[in-house]
C-alpha cells in the first residue's frame, strides 16, 4: 500500500455517464491484485473532505485506471479532471478476489462499476467462463468487448430491454443455469449492488457452490483505522464478528456475510483482527 501524488493521463466519457480515468502511478499499479481498490483524494473539492474509493479497473504499464459514474458531489467534480492534473491516490487497498479454482467454471456477475471491478480478475483467471452483466439500460453495460476479447462469454440483461435480455441479471443466470451444464462447478465472482450480491449468494449457497462477493460498504479511511465499513461476518463457531470491508474485504465468500436484517446470530467478539487473507 502506498500514498502517491499521481498525474491524470487520460480522462474520457465512456458511455451512459461513465468515465474512464487513467493515472500514471507506477508503484501502485505494480502491486495490484484482482478486486482491490484505490482511495482517491479529489483535489480542491469544496467542502467535502473525505477520499472516495474506486475499484481498480486496470493496472498495466505503470498505469492505473478506474471507471466511475457521477453520482454525488465528488464524482461530479471529478468530471473536470484533465490530463496533467494531480491526484492523491492511496492503494492498492483491500483483499480482492481469489484465483478461480482449477477445474471449476468461473461465472462473473456484475452491475454498474462491478464490470470494471471484475476486469483484472477476468484477465488473471486461467479458465474463462460466462459473464452476466446487468443494468437498467444499454448505457449501463460496460466493457463487453474487453471481456469478450479475454475469451469470456458475455450475457447482458437490461431492465428496459434496450440491450440483451430484458430483466435482471439473476433472471439471465437462472435461465442459463437451467439450460446449461458447465464443465466444472460454477464459482461466482460478483460485484454490484447489495441486492445482486445477496441474490447470487443465495443461489450459490443453495447449489453448494462458492460466490465471492465484493461489498459496496460506505468507507471513510479505507485502511482499517476508522471502523466505518464494517460488515457482520460469520465466525467458524457460528457466531459473528465485525470485519472491515476496506481491509479484510471488500471481497468475502457469500457464506461469511451476514446481511442486515438476517435473523440474529450471537456476536462473538468485536475484535477486528488483522487477518492475512492474501
Amino acid at each position, binding site marked *: 500500500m502506498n500514498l502517491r501524488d499521481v498525474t491524470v493521463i487520460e480522462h474520457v466519457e465512456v458511455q451512459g455517464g461513465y468515465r474512464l480515468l487513467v493515472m500514471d502511478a507506477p508503484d501502485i499499479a505494480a502491486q495490484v491484485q484482482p478486486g482491490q481498490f484505490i482511495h482517491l*483524494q479529489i483535489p480542491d473539492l469544496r467542502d467535502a473532505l*473525505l477520499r472516495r474509493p474506486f475499484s481498480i479497473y486496470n493496472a498495466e504499464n505503470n498505469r492505473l485506471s478506474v471507471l466511475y459514474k457521477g453520482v454525488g458531489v465528488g464524482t461530479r467534480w471529478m468530471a473536470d479532471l484533465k490530463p496533467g492534473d494531480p491526484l492523491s491516490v492511496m492503494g492498492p487497498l483491500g483483499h480482492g478476489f481469489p484465483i478461480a479454482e482449477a477445474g471449476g467454471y468461473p461465472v462473473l456477475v456484475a452491475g454498474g462499476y462491478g464490470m470494471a471491478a471484475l476486469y483484472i480478475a477476468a484477465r488473471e483467471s486461467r479458465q474463462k467462463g460466462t459473464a452476466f452483466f446487468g443494468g437498467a439500460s444499454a448505457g449501463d453495460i460496460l466493457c463487453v468487448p474487453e471481456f469478450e476479447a479475454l475469451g469470456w462469454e458475455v450475457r447482458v440483461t437490461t431492465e428496459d430491454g434496450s440491450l440483451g435480455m430484458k430483466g435482471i441479471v439473476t433472471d439471465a443466470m437462472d435461465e442459463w443455469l437451467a439450460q446449461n451444464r458447465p464443465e466444472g462447478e460454477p464459482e461466482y465472482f460478483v460485484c454490484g449492488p447489495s441486492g445482486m450480491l445477496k441474490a447470487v449468494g443465495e443461489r450459490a449457497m443453495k447449489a453448494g457452490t462458492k460466490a465471492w462477493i465484493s461489498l459496496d460498504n460506505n468507507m*471513510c479511511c479505507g485502511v482499517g483505522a476508522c471502523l*466505518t465499513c*464494517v460488515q457482520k461476518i460469520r465466525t467458524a463457531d457460528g457466531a459473528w464478528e465485525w470485519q472491515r470491508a476496506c481491509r479484510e474485504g471488500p471481497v468475502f465468500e457469500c457464506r461469511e456475510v451476514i446481511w442486515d436484517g438476517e435473523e440474529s446470530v450471537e456476536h462473538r467478539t468485536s475484535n*477486528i483482527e488483522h487477518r492475512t487473507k492474501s
Partner: protein
Amino acid sequence: MSDVSVNIGGIRMKTPVMVASGTFGYGPEYADLVDLSGLGAIVVKGICVEPTLGNMTPRTAETRSGMLNAIGLPNPGFEGFVEKHMPFLRQYDVPVIVNVWGRTLEEYADIAEKFDSVDGVAGLEVNVSCPNIKEGSGLFGTDLNMFRQAIAGMRERTRLPLIPKLAPNVSDIKSFARTAEDCGADAISLINSYPAMAIDINTRRPKLANVTGGLSGPAIHPIAVKLVWEASSAVNIPVIGMGGIMTWEDAVEFIIAGATAVAVGTANFVNPLTAIEVAGGIREFLDRNGMASVSELTGTLET
C-alpha cells in the same frame, strides 16, 4: 533548529503532534505509510474492560468541512487489546496513550487499574463522552459531578499519567478543566467530536444508524480553539488541543491559544501524513520566528 519536544504530564514526546483516538486505529493500519516513531504519541481507539460491539452501520457520514461518526466504541476489551495490539505498538519508539472509557464509575476505575501494570503504556486518555448506563440519562462528560467521580476514582487506581478528554457541549468548559486538575489529572485534552446529526431527506432517516453522532473536522476548529483557550486559562496542567487540524497553521492556533500539544484526527483520513507534516510546519514556524522551543509559543495569545 527549534526544539519541538514536549512533556505532557511526564510523557515525553518528540513532537507536539499526536494522532487522535479513533482516527488511527491501533497503529498497524497506517504503519505502511507513516513512520510511527515520528509521531508525538499514538492515542489508540477507546478501550473498555469487556469486548464491545459498537453501533450498527452506517457509522460515518460526510458533512461540509467535517464528518459525523457514531462508531460506538467497538473494541476487543482490555485483554484483547493488550494481547493483540500492544506487542505491535511496543516495537516503536513512540509513546502509546490508551484512550479508555466505561459504562459506569466502576468500569472507569477498573480500566485505569488494569492498565497500570501494562508494559509500554505511557498514559491514559479518558473519554467521558459516553452515557452512564447505570445512572441513566446523565453523561460523564457533561455532568460535572459525574465527571469528578469518574476522574477521582481513576486517580486512586492508577499511577499512569491521566488525561481526561473534555466533551465540548458544555456551557462552562473551565469548571470541567479545573475539576480535572483538582482530581489529580496530569493533563487534559479537548475537544471530542461535537454531538450532531444529518438526515437523508429522501429516506427521511438519519444518515447514521445511531441517529446522532459526533461532528469532527475543520468545521469545528474555531469552536475547539475557543474551548482550548478558555480551558488552558483555567488550569496549570498541560492542555492537548484538537478539533479540525488540517494544516500546521491550525495547530499553531491551538498552541497560541494555550495548548502544549495537539492531536490530529479526521485529517488522517484525508492525508495520513498530516501529523508528521504539521510537526514539520510548527518547527519551521518556530525557526522563522526565532523561538528556541515550542514552549515559547504556548499561550502567547495577545488579547
